[in-house]
């Protein structure tokens, strides 16, 4: 009878493709919208995650996210260094500065000041120039997307200059950096160079980055740092989640986007479920006919589930494929760079599509089971 179920499903090519594409379209909506949302939220923490070497971030107790900072005195670095379990600790500056381009235009930039000797927090992949060039006077490295903002449609060229806080900065390198949530260019400089570019303030230090000794308990270390310094110490993932939640709570963007995701999800499931449900309902009479001819309810359920699985698997694969292909094709578009369908989203979409297809088949199976076989005469 599986063969009959297969024939019923695929007998009408157009209808069959229609159902599979209904489910595929539903999967695309779910996977694509969720992927964009997740990728966007990931951007809020890209600068935390890019600093791969740090295990613990120490910051001012009033810090709410990686983009809402309160400075610390430089002396905090040595306080943290004194805590047992700390392998090393270095300072990191992160702030917004205004740069003047040679053509007189002003731009807001994200400025990262890296520990002068270790350069912890430096970009991991250089496209032009080298990290070592940061040691030159007034040297800065800019991210590729930022370069395109500042110098649109111009070839990548080192040696260009910017002016910040009346100080000259020379671009000595172009790097790859994860795009930030606010799509500002990112400049990297040594800590003491960055200090000259930023507006004068009593304190300058944004974070103390900590590497743990092997075998140290992160939670315990954070607690000890907090006790010793009176500051907040968070592991990288705690800090990242704090930032994500800050964005979700304090800005409208994730909420609005969340609504779009929810709509994509609802519309997607509705389409996927509806198409399959209608398919079975349309076949109700055929199933009734088979029941009259001696097919048991158990067999009927098997047939419908087989159809559901075929439709679900095919539709889902096409849908996820289309979503992944979208991000593959757009990976060089700055606004979508780094966007992807993470496996968690793929899995969640699979669960959602599986759930909805099974739900709609259960609903339609119920109809088939309560179907008076006498309908065959109507």
């Amino acid at each position, binding site marked *: 009878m599986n063969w*009959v179920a297969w024939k019923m499903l695929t007998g009408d090519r157009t209808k069959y493709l229609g159902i599979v594409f209904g489910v595929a379209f539903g999967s695309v909506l779910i996977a694509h919208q969720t992927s964009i949302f997740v990728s966007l939220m990931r951007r809020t923490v890209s600068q935390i995650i890019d600093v791969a070497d740090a295990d613990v971030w120490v910051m001012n107790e009033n810090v709410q996210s990686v983009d809402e900072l309160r400075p610390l005195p430089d002396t905090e670095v040595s306080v943290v260094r004194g805590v047992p379990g700390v392998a090393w600790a270095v300072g990191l500056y992160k702030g917004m500065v205004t740069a003047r381009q040679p053509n007189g235009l002003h731009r807001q930039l994200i400025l990262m000041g890296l520990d002068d000797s270790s350069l912890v927090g430096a970009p991991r992949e250089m496209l032009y120039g080298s990290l070592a060039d940061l040691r030159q006077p007034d040297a800065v490295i800019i991210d590729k997307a930022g370069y395109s903002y500042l110098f649109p449609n111009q070839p990548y060229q080192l040696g260009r200059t910017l002016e910040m806080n009346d100080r000259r900065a020379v671009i000595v390198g172009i790097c790859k950096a994860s795009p930030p949530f606010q799509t500002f260019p990112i400049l990297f400089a040594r800590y003491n160079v960055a200090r000259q570019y930023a507006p004068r303030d009593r304190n300058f230090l944004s974070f103390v980055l900590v590497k743990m000794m092997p075998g140290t308990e992160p939670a315990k270390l954070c607690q000890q740092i907090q006790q010793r310094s009176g500051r907040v110490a968070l592991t990288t993932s705690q800090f990242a989640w704090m930032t994500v939640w800050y964005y979700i709570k304090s800005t409208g963007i994730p909420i609005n986007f969340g609504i779009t995701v929810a709509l994509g999800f609802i519309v997607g499931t509705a389409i996927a479920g509806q198409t399959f449900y209608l398919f079975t309902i349309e076949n109700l009479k055929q199933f009734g006919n*088979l029941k009259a001819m*001696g097919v048991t309810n158990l067999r009927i359920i098997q047939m419908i589930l087989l159809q559901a699985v075929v439709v679900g698997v095919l539709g889902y694969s096409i849908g996820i494929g289309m979503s992944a292909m979208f991000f593959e094709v757009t990976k060089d578009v700055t606004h979508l760079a780094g966007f992807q369908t993470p496996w968690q989203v793929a899995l969640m979409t699979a669960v959602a599509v599986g759930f909805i297809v099974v739900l709609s088949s259960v609903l339609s199976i119920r109809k088939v089971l309560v179907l008076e*076989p006498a309908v065959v005469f109507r």
Partner: protein
Amino acid sequence: MRIVAPLVEPAIAVSCRGITRDFGDGDTRIRVLHGIDLDIPLGEITLLVGPSGCGKTTLISIVCGLLEPTGGDITLFGESHQSLRGTRLVQFRGKNIGFVFQQYNLLPALTAAENAALPLIIAGMPRRQAVSKARETLETVGLGNRADSKPSQLSGGQQQRVAIARALVHEPRLLVCDEPTAALDAQSGQTVMELLRRVAVHPDRAVLVVTHDNRVFEYGDRIVSMTDGRIEKIETRAQRIAVRSEPAAEPIANELLSVNRVFGSVDHVA
């Protein structure tokens, strides 16, 4: 040596006693069948006729075990309907009953041969074997050359012949046809009925045909007339011929269309 007693009456395939059936609940409850007593003999075509809404379809649904009666007893080939429940009933039906419907009810995705093979496949026969047996049956209904056509490529009359092949392929002991000619033109209707007479009638099979179509009355061995959920009259072929030869009688078809008028005073002929 077995001694078989000569049958005076034909052997009975289905026997109904006091069948009632209600639809609806409470105030909207209506009784559609009011105590039906009916025997359907083997080796004959029994026609079930009567005005629309009199309960013909309800009665045959109950006879086939597709619908539960509200009251009364049915015996199908010696098995009481009470002993046939659930999966056992479904399998009993699959094995012993063939169906022909007004709208043919072929699966559009399957070819004629595959459709005709369904009862065998349902019974568990391997597909190849079932389809090849179905081809033979299609030969007997004159469609050997259309075995690989889809229903949409066949005329209504041809589809109904495929349906007859499907209903007979597993050699059931009861063939039930609901309005098999209603969707067909006169010519195709005749063909279908001739086919039923020729291939369906078998000493070990009962054929029950519900019809409105007075053109097919002549194909029945007995005609059961229903009105308002009751059997009004049962007439054998011999009795009809006798009526026809009476000088004053109107043509048979008209008589049967207006059973109330002509036979209103006649009692049940059981």
